[in-house]
């Protein structure tokens, strides 16, 4: 039954994650933390950190990680496959009916309307990670400094993450 739940959960995520992987995070969190309780909230946040440290789309990382934790290799395969399945089917559909798809005003309207929805979901992600990812003033300091360095292009993502981890090790590790 676990495999079926994994399949259905990530199929839902795959079908409704408009706007790329980041926008899929609220959906993923809903399914794996709230509905099925496959990961705890802290584990979900650690998954975000792991996703940034590994190659590939964040939603694929999340599907593989959750599937692996719940059902081993087969679970990882089922979850990742279920997430990719809507992409396979919908792209075939679109390529087959390309001209009609583009010119239909209802389809165009729907797609245009997804933009504010995407912004709302993204803001929800930002608020949620700020709330849960920062424990104390040291974390806040690290986050603001890191954000500024990144914004002005002084450092890249992976070195920054490793640096943050190392500083965390020094600061939190001693106590």
């Amino acid at each position, binding site marked *: 039954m676990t495999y079926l739940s994994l399949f259905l959960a990530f199929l839902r995520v795959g*079908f*409704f*994650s*408009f*706007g790329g992987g*980041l926008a899929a995070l609220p959906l993923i969190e809903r399914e794996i933390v709230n509905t099925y309780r496959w990961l705890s909230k802290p*584990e979900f946040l*650690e998954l975000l*950190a*792991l*996703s*940034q440290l*590994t*190659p*590939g*789309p*964040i*939603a694929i990382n999340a599907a593989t*990680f959750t599937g*692996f934790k719940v059902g081993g290799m087969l679970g990882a395969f089922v979850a990742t496959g279920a*997430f990719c399945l809507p992409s*396979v089917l*919908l*792209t075939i559909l*679109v390529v087959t009916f390309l001209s009609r798809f583009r010119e239909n*005003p*209802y389809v165009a*309207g*729907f*797609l*245009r*309307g*997804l*933009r*504010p*929805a*995407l*912004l*709302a979901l*993204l*803001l*929800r*992600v930002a608020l949620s*990670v*700020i709330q849960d*990812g*920062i424990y104390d003033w040291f*974390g806040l300091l690290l*986050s603001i400094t890191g*954000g500024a360095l*990144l*914004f002005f292009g002084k450092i890249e*993502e992976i070195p920054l*993450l490793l640096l*943050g*981890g190392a500083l*965390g*090790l020094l600061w*939190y*590790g001693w106590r």
Partner: protein
Amino acid sequence: MSERHRRTFLLFLTFLKIGAFTWGGGYAMIPLIWRELVEKQKVLSEDAFLEALSIAQSLPGAVAVNTASLVGLMIGGVTMQLLFILATALPSFFSIVVLAFFFLRFRELPLIQAFFRGALAVVVSLIVLAVWQIGKKATEDWIDLAVAFALLVLLLRTGIHPLYVVLLGGGFGVLLRR
């Protein structure tokens, strides 16, 4: 091995390489796919790639997976499509499986926890910055902002499933049709 099989195999390797060397989410893959398929190997025209990219962004799912899927369909049909998706997902799949294997055993260790506290503080800034950049592109005018704000309040106050936010936004777009 026939010429066609050899070409398919080479493209498979190309996508495998792109999947393995792009950190920081699927968007990072797009310029690499462009460089390899349009500029170097010339198996796809510029226009076809841009069309694939815009469709990929309007469909649900990971943008990189959608792009790989569409490009595969355009070049060589369903077989190529499935191969490209597989190649895009495999590096991510295996690196996460290896990491998860160790992580799930050692995550309780105080030192690992200390590392993640520091890394997570930085992940917060990564995500907030990405949200800012994507959000800026997604909205054009005050109607977009107002709808986004209303949906955000709805999401936070009522705790509805995020997929209803997607459907409400799309439905509102159909009503306005601008």
